[in-house]
Structure formats: structure tokens, C-alpha cells
């Protein structure tokens, strides 16, 4: 008796162009053409029906999975809403400080919620103008086209020139800094350093640190010849710590913090003054800037309460821990 082969349905494998069996008949399938085909049909249909069933059940499934989540949210919404709420956005230099102040304030005053978001000084200005935030944080004084806002100085921050720890240089005058940043001075040797070409690190356009720095050395950003442009303070520190010939400038707070964490950088003396919190506080250190909160109108009651908190000893201690100088009224 000749060996009978079961008839099978064939499909195209689209990768190879080969014909492949689409489905195998289950083992209990009765012999014979009709039976096999039926089995193939069933196998084929099953997948589709399963999928369609799944789609049909999807809404119910979604309800079943989402309902607990919705209920949880509803319960959460029923909790007593915070009695006082503040939104403060802006400078990434000021944000960590304000966030910590806010946390300390919240723990003293239950029911308060202060939402601090970082995103640059320009965002702080924009959000206050559009009414998206109660106050904006900016790490500089107001520009001439921003005089419609009111500033409240929280602290003062110095900007330090930093070089690699192995650089023998100790101090720079304003004129020397100007020559370095305008490209007149190409190597360290003329300034009393080692004989290496200077890697000049500048900050990206729009950053408050850049504005304060350029205003101090009286240079237009168009004549600055930088070898590297960094966005964040950390990137400046990171680069200087790995390049013995680099020079950059960052907030004293950032520099000290990174040095505490082992970054091999050195803060230069500026006009004979060491870059320390004490010198900034005394007003001797020439390169400093106010860290401000800005508002559109006179601060409302909530904000005024928070601002009063800045002057307490607890807040002063937090500000000093961030290497900033608490502002006096």
C-alpha cells in the first residue's frame, strides 16, 4: 500500500519565498481529506478568533485594571489639599538651595507645599511674566529689559576662576583674564605657568554665569576665542580636572563642593583676593553676583512668609552649607 501523505495547507514565508506548512493537523485528526482540512481550518481560525476576542474584551480588561488606579487617585484627591501652595521656577544654580530651604520650611509648617523646579534663569523670568510661577529664581541682577520685575536677594554667590591642581599659577589679574579669553595669550608660559597651550572654557550663550563674567572683564562674547563651550558647571569642573592646561569659571559653591568630592582643581586668586565665602561676604572678592527671587508684584502673604524664613538662623545655616553668602536685608 503506497504511503499516503496528509494534505496540508501551505503559506508563503515572506523572508525566504519558500512555501511552509501553515499548520499541522492535530494527532487525533481522522484520516481523509475533509477531516484534515477541517482541522487546519480550526487551527487557522483559532488564532484569529482569539485575537478578536481579545480585542472585544479589551475595554472590560482596561476598566478592570484601571479602576483601582482611578479609585486610588480619587482617594488621594480627597485628602486635605495643602492650605498654602507656592510654585518657584528658574536658575539651576539657585534651585538646589531653594529646594532645601523649602523642605525645611515645609517641615516646620504642615499643610504647606512649595514646588521648586529648575530650568535656567530665563525660564524663571518667563514663568513669572506669564504667571506660571509665584516667583522666579535668577542667578544674576535684572537686565535692563527686565525692570518690570521686583527682585528679592536671597544670597550672594562668587564666581571663581578654576585651573587644574597641577597648574603652578596662583592668581590672575582682570587684564590677564581678558587676554586669555580674547585669544591674545595662547600659552601659560607668559603668565608664569607651564609651557602648554591654554584650553579656554567658556559657558554656553544665555547662562547667567557667562553674563556676569563677561560684564566683569568687559568683553563681548563675539571676541571670546573658546576651545570648549560647556553648559553645566559640572562639565566645566570635569574638564578642568582632566586637562592640566584648562581654565574655566564656575560658581564658588560648585567649585568647593566638587573639590570636597576629590576633583583636582584649584581656585585662582582674583585681584589678590582668595575665592572664599568670607571674601565674598566682606565684599572684597570682585566677581560676585546676587541670587535673586523675582516677582511680578509685591510678594503675596505666602511668599512673604517663606521669604521671612530665609533670615532665620536655620535658613542661614543651609545657605552657608551651599557655600553661598546669606544676603542682609
Amino acid at each position: 500500500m503506497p504511503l499516503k501523505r496528509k494534505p496540508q495547507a501551505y503559506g508563503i514565508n515572506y523572508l525566504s519565498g519558500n512555501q511552509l506548512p501553515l499548520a499541522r493537523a492535530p494527532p487525533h485528526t481522522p484520516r481523509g481529506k475533509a477531516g484534515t482540512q477541517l482541522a487546519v481550518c480550526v487551527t487557522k481560525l483559532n488564532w484569529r478568533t482569539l485575537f478578536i476576542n481579545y480585542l472585544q474584551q479589551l475595554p472590560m480588561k482596561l476598566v478592570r485594571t484601571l479602576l483601582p488606579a482611578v479609585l486610588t487617585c480619587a482617594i488621594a484627591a480627597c485628602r486635605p489639599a495643602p492650605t498654602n501652595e507656592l510654585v518657584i521656577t528658574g536658575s539651576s544654580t539657585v534651585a538646589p538651595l531653594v529646594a532645601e530651604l523649602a523642605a525645611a520650611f515645609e517641615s516646620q509648617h504642615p499643610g504647606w507645599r512649595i514646588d521648586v523646579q529648575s530650568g535656567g534663569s530665563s525660564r524663571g523670568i518667563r514663568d513669572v511674566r506669564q504667571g506660571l510661577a509665584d516667583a522666579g529664581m535668577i542667578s544674576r541682577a535684572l537686565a535692563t529689559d527686565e525692570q518690570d520685575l521686583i527682585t528679592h536677594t536671597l544670597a550672594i554667590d562668587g564666581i571663581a576662576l578654576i585651573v587644574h591642581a597641577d597648574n603652578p599659577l596662583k592668581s590672575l589679574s582682570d587684564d590677564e583674564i581678558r587676554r586669555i579669553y580674547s585669544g591674545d595669550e595662547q600659552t601659560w608660559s607668559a603668565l608664569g605657568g607651564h609651557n602648554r597651550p591654554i584650553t579656554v572654557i567658556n559657558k554656553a550663550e544665555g547662562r547667567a554665569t557667562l553674563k556676569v563674567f563677561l560684564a566683569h572683564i568687559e568683553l563681548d562674547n563675539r571676541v571670546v576665542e573658546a576651545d570648549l563651550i560647556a553648559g553645566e558647571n559640572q562639565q566645566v569642573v570635569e574638564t578642568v580636572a582632566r586637562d592640566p592646561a584648562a581654565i574655566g569659571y564656575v560658581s564658588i559653591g560648585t567649585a568647593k563642593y566638587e573639590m570636597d568630592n576629590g576633583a583636582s582643581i584649584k581656585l585662582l586668586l582674583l585681584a589678590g583676593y582668595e575665592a572664599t565665602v568670607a571674601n565674598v561676604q566682606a565684599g572684597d572678592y570682585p566677581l560676585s553676583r546676587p541670587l535673586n527671587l523675582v516677582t511680578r508684584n509685591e510678594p503675596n502673604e505666602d511668599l512673604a512668609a517663606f521669604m521671612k524664613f530665609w533670615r532665620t538662623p536655620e535658613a542661614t545655616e543651609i545657605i552657608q552649607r551651599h557655600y553661598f553668602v546669606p544676603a542682609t536685608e
Partner: protein
Amino acid sequence: MSRQRNEFWLYFTLASAAGLAGLLLIPVVLLLILESLPLLAPAALWESLTSAAWHPRAGEFGLLAMMVASLLISALALALAAPLGILYAVWLNLYLPRRWTNRLRPLQELLAGIPSVVYGLWGLVVLVPMINSYAPPGASLLAAVLVLALMILPFSALVTDAALQAPIRHRMSAAQALAVSRWGTFRRVLWPEARATIIGGIVLQFGRALGETLAVVMVAGNVVQFPGSLFDPVRTLTANIALEMSYATGTHHTALFLSGLVLMLITLILMFQINRRGVAI
């Protein structure tokens, strides 16, 4: 009756899912165009596209140097990574004993899964100081190219590897029976069949390279200029947006959206060109 209705719902669900994926592009493009509208006047646009001077505070928004840098970095990275990736996949599939193949394959998947910030950090901490000791400042076109190539390499290997599977399954035995050499098998049998898939996948990687931001910001130096050599720092269009977006107001903000629009148009044009013509190799 009910089966027809089922079919309708099935079709409806799938079609709307597919349509939605395509339609998502429209609001993105619209937003980019709307936000960069003030600079889309012919004179201002021409000025932006042909000038290399980027001084936002002085009202100069030249994008040319950054466009060149973006294209140059991506092209060089691709030129480095694509051949290596293809050769690696060929070696993996045709030359390596099978048990090693299966152990090595997860490794490249692991490499492909590393987030770009990690590559950037590695570039900043290891690669840049290395280049710096040879030719300061270190953060340069070369560093960006190397980091990007490293990021693309596992993907071009994966794409090639996947594209070779089907032809290997169906043609390998025949080629072996005819005593064709391994390289001959690849060159004359597998490559013609898998070429379209491989090149398509690698072109996608070019788009990825153009769009890569984080790693490039960390290692490219970000100075707006035409690179005079491989060791000069450059700024790409994506780096420009990432560096300045949160600090920009007014026209500066607009110019950054224009950067995004230009970048997207460059990507689209390249994709269309390559898809239409194909690449003859």
C-alpha cells in the same frame, strides 16, 4: 453577521493605530514651523542658512557651521561603524563556531542597550583626555566621531546579523554543497539577498547619529566653527538646542526651533534620497 462586525472592528483598530503613528509627525512639524515662523522670512532664513556666525545676543543666527558639523560627524561615524559592523556580523555568522556565536550575540545586544549618556561620560572621562594629551583641547570632532561610531557599531552589527539569518538558512547548505568559500558565499550569495535590509538599517543609524545629543554635547567641545582639522571642537545642531534652549528667550528661542526644523529637514531629505535611489554597492 457577527463575524463581519468582528472583522470591521479588527480592521478599524489596526488602521487607526497605523494612522495615528503616521499622523503624530504632523503636530511635531507644525509646532516646529510655528515656533520658528519669525525667522522663516526669506531674507532671515537665507541669512541663517548661509552664515556661520552664531551670536544670539547680537542677533546673528548663522546655522551653516553647525549643519556642516552635524553632517560631518554623522557621516564619519557611519563610515567608521558600518563596515566594521557588517564585517563583525559576517565573522559572527560564517567564521565563528556556532556555540561561540550564541554566546557572543547577547554581548552586542548588551552594547546596544547602553544609554547614550554612559557613552558620553566614557568619552568625557577617557577619550577626551587621551586626545588632549596628543592634540589639545581634546574635546573635538574626532572625539564625537569615535563616541558616535561606538554607539552605532552594535546596531549596525545587529541589523546585519538579523538580515543575514534568512539567507543563511536558505542558501548556506546549497553554497556549501557547491564548495563555495565562506567569503564567496557572503559576497555572491548572501550579500545580494540581504543588501537592501542591511543598508536600510544602516541608513536608520545615520538618522540616529544626526539626532544624538547628549553624548555629543559632552565630547564635541561645542564651539561654533567650521572644523579646520579632526582635532578642532565643533557644535552640532542638536547640541546647540540642548545647550541653550532652557536659557533662551525671544528671537534666540525662535532660532533654536529653527535649528530643530533644519535638522529634521536634513534627516528627511537624506532618508528620501537614499530610499528612492537605493545604494548601489
